[in-house]
Every structure is written in structure tokens, then in C-alpha cells.
């Protein structure tokens, strides 16, 4: 089981590495986006697929780190070596504050994170003197640390690929660790976990902050790719799409969120070229996924494998 997964991952990695040579800049750009948003989706899945918490505010951490990098580099001329870690830090700190939300469960948690997400969007939108309002912050330069300067889109693509690959490995270790198992235990039965000696609130808080850090990293990668950031990055559709990507691809897995990201972004690109009602199409994808494929693609694949008689995962 593990070997075939490892082979699959290596094949995927190779495919990604060769992409710029096989396809044009358009596909490479799409692949970069897919990786970045896949990471954002992954961050929501740490909470959803493992701890059972459905967060609707992860775009906040994504956007706040992006804004931090942008403002530091563009307005204060800070170097990447300062701006990028600062972005990561600020986003994570916000997650530490929003982590208060884990004092609630179930529906309340969903609603509270939705509302918290709106705070950031609202601030980005209205505090125009600082955030640039609807126009956001533009002209973010390519990242440069000392002698290492990224000067092309291709170069940035490989940087993102390397970061994502490293993240995926680290995330995999995390979910297989005692901490990851504890999260799944809380999802399965929080009362049992408490009686076994786990301080579940603390575990969930730690998970929330960790997931916020991952989302912040995605935000840093995003702002250097997009070269600008505006309030849309903090908006509700971004948060909910991230969760949808995780679900479509398959929650509780490492590959699922990236698969889901590829599907959703691919769909968007394909549909918007001939049909104007993209949001409606996305809405239908939401509905269809809930009704017919709640396990996502990975779940579908697993069920097909089980039906074909191969040993269950």
C-alpha cells in the first residue's frame, strides 16, 4: 500500500518537474496556482479531515500574510528575508487569536469562523489608508534572498514546487504522529478522549494554529506569484472553496486537497472560457459533491478498489 502511494507521488513530482518543458507558460501558471491553493486546502483539511472542525476563515490567514509581505516589501522596501517570515508570523499570530473559536463546536464553530473571516475582509476593505482598500497593494517584486533572485515565472514555479513538496512530507509526518492520531480521536469521540486523559481543547487549539500557519505559508507563496493582493483574497468564497477542494479531492489524505485544487481550478478555467455563470457552476459542484461524492475523488477511488476486490486500504 505504502509503496504504490510512494510511486504515485514520485510520478506526480516528476510530472510537475517536467511540466515547464512539456507545456507552455499558461499551464505552468495554472499549476503554480493549483499548488498554492492546494496548500491552502490542505490547511483546512488538517482541521476538517482530522479534527472534524469545519473552518470558514482560513482565507484570513492567507490574506493577512500576503498583505504583510506586500506592505513590507512595497511600502517599506523590506527585503524578502524579512518580509516572508514576517508574513508567516503575522498570519500565524492571527490564527492564535482566532483560535478562540475552538471554544465552540459543531455548528457554532462554523458560524463563528465565518464571522471572524469577515472581520479580516472588512478591515482589508475599509481600512483603505493602510490596506489600499479595494485596490489592494500592487507591484510586489519577485522574491530575492541574498544572491538568490527569482527572476522568471519558471524559476518561481520550481520554488513553489519545492516548498510544496517539503510541506507535503512534513504534513504527512504530522498526521501520522501521535498528535495527528489524537486529532482523529477527538473527531471520533471527544468525550472518550477526555476520559483517556487528553486536554482536547488544547489539542484543537494547537491544530488550529498549525493549520493557520500552513494557510499563511500559502499566502506568502501566493503574493509573490500574483504580485499583488486585494480584499478578495480574504473573502468568504476563497475560504469555502478551499474546504470544497479538500472535500472534492478527499478529506483526511495528503493528496486529496491538491487533487481537489486541480479539479476546481481546472473547472474554473475551462468553464469561464465559454460560460459566464462560473459561480453558479461552482455552486452546482458544491451541491453535487455533497449529494453524490462526499468522500471526494480519493474516496471514490477507494470504493472502486474495494469493489474490484483489492484489499481495503
Amino acid at each position: 500500500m505504502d509503496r504504490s502511494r510512494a510511486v504515485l507521488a514520485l510520478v506526480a513530482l516528476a510530472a510537475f518537474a517536467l511540466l515547464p518543458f512539456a507545456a507552455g507558460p499558461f499551464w505552468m501558471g495554472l499549476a503554480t496556482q493549483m499548488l498554492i491553493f492546494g496548500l491552502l486546502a490542505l490547511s483546512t483539511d488538517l482541521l476538517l479531515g482530522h479534527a472534524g472542525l469545519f473552518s470558514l476563515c482560513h482565507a484570513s490567514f492567507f490574506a493577512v500574510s500576503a498583505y504583510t509581505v506586500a506592505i513590507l516589501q512595497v511600502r517599506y522596501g523590506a527585503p524578502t528575508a524579512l518580509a516572508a517570515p514576517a508574513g508567516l508570523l503575522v498570519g500565524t499570530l492571527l490564527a492564535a487569536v482566532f483560535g478562540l473559536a475552538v471554544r465552540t463546536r459543531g455548528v457554532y464553530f462554523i458560524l463563528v469562523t465565518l464571522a471572524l473571516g469577515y472581520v479580516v475582509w472588512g478591515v482589508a476593505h475599509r481600512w483603505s489608508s493602510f490596506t489600499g482598500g479595494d485596490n489592494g497593494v500592487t507591484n510586489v517584486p519577485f522574491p530575492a534572498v541574498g544572491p538568490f533572485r527569482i527572476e522568471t515565472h519558471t524559476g518561481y514555479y520550481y520554488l513553489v514546487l519545492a516548498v510544496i513538496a517539503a510541506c507535503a512530507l512534513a504534513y504527512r509526518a504530522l498526521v501520522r504522529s501521535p498528535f495527528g492520531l489524537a486529532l482523529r480521536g477527538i473527531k471520533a469521540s471527544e468525550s472518550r478522549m477526555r476520559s483517556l486523559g487528553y486536554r482536547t481543547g488544547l489539542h484543537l487549539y494547537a491544530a488550529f494554529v498549525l493549520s493557520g500557519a500552513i494557510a499563511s505559508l500559502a499566502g506568502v507563496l501566493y503574493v509573490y506569484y500574483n504580485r499583488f493582493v486585494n480584499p478578495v483574497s480574504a473573502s468568504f468564497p476563497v475560504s469555502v472553496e478551499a474546504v470544497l477542494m479538500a472535500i472534492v479531492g478527499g478529506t483526511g489524505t495528503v493528496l486529496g486537497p491538491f487533487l481537489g485544487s486541480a479539479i476546481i481550478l481546472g473547472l474554473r478555467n475551462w468553464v469561464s472560457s465559454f460560460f459566464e455563470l462560473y459561480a453558479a457552476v461552482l455552486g452546482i459542484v458544491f451541491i453535487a459533491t455533497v449529494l453524490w461524492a462526499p468522500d471526494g475523488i480519493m474516496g471514490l477511488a477507494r470504493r472502486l478498489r474495494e469493489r474490484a476486490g483489492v484489499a481495503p486500504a
Partner: protein
Amino acid sequence: MTSAILQAINGISLAALLFLLASGFTLSFGLMRVVNMAHGAYYLLGGYIGLSVARATGSFAAALVAGGLAVVVLGLAVDRFLLRRTGENHLAQVLLTVGVAFVIGDVALRIWGGDFLKVPVPVSLRGAMELPGGLVYPTYRVALILLGTVVGALLWILYRKTQIGAVVRAGVDDREQVAATGINVDRLFVMVSALASFLAGMAGVAGGAFLTLYPGAEWEILVYALVVVIVGGLGSLGGAMIGALVVGLLDAYGRWLLPEFSYFVLFAPMALLLLVRPRGIAGKDA
């Protein structure tokens, strides 16, 4: 001083509107354990339809009714064909209804366009009136406060003093028990859901006359309604009233005193509540 009072009335008029929207949402959850994120889209659609009806007929009353009824039909269809399949899976309900909201929002965009539109205020309610104490205030907003109060009073009487209300309250506390007494629970659900939809659609028309209607409004109003419900507690009608007042007043004063941070002012008390009473002021178990 007058400014402060004016802001208070602003806040109360917003509270009236939010109450119309939040009461349906909270009762739907309390009774049917359904989280319907399309409520904001219901508001917007109701508003747009009311707008078209008002333009065609010149009647604001007709617009209110049309907006409400259109959403009732839509809401029943969503319940029957979509929400019924999700049982009590809140995650599924949220995703499903967000999807519905996306569809409604996009379709509305195609039909009514992206401009900021206003539902025409009826002639009798235009302009300003003089309030006791000498303050001059837009008549329409006063009428809105009256509407909210009347609806609130009616709902309260219905909820607390009638037999149907007693059944709904019992159902909010224990659905199985109500079903066991032989009452047609399905019909009850349909009625409550229809009422919630009607209120949302009507709120859209009422709100569309002083706040504007535009793509994205459905999410902004939903978030406000959700904060009302969080503060007041899911499933509590009284909580929705208190929550609406809190949110309305905070928004008015926030916009007046700290316009750049007004959203923050609004959500800070919610954060505080999370620290102290995660279940809201009067909430039932989620």
C-alpha cells in the same frame, strides 16, 4: 447628543431588519436542526423580485408580498429536493446551501446586473418626520422599526401563547417527543420553513429600500444575521431579538465613531462572548 440618539435609531432600524432575517434562521435551526446559508441569498432574491414588482405595479405592499412568496416557493423546493437529503449533517447542509446561494447569486447577477439598486420607497413613507423631542428622522426607517416590532410581537405571541407555538417550542427542545405525540412533524417543519423564507424575502424588499441591493450583499447581510444568532444563541427567538439590537446598535455606533474599523467593533463583542459564554446568551445545544 442628538447625533448619539440618531445613531441609536439607525441601529434600531438595522436591528429590525436583522431580526426579520435572523428569526427565521434561528427557528429553522432550533426546530429542524438545519443551517441554511442561503438565507442571505433569499434576502437578495426577494429584494430583487420585489424591486421588479414595485417597478411594474408601483405598489410597495405588492413588492413585499411578492418578494416573500417567491422565496417561499424557492425555499420549499430547496428543502424538499436538496436539504432533505442531508439529514442532520451540518457540514453537508452548509456546503449545500452555500452552493445554492452561489447559484442564486450568479443568476441574480445575470438578470438584474451588477449595479447598486434600490427598491423605491412608497410615497407615503418618503421624506422625514418629526419625532417626539424634536428630532427629524427618515420616515421609512421609522416604519421599518414599526414593521420589525410588529413582526416580533406577532412571532412572540405565536411562539409563546398559541398551541402551534407550544408545539414548535416543544419540538425545539425534543423533536422525537413531539413526533411521538402524533403531531405531523413534517407539516410543522414545512410551515416553519415557509415562514422563515417569507421573512427573509420580505426583509430583502424592506432592506432594499434603504440599504441597496448588489452582488455580494447576500453574504454581508448573512454574516450580520449570523452574528445576531451567535450572540443571541441558536434556536432562541428572544435571543434573536436581543442579538439584533446588540448588533444593530454596535454597527451604527461603530460606523459613526470608527468608520475604518467598524467591522472590528462589531465582532469584538462576539469574540468576548466566545470567551465567556460559547453558547450565546440563550442558546440551545448545537
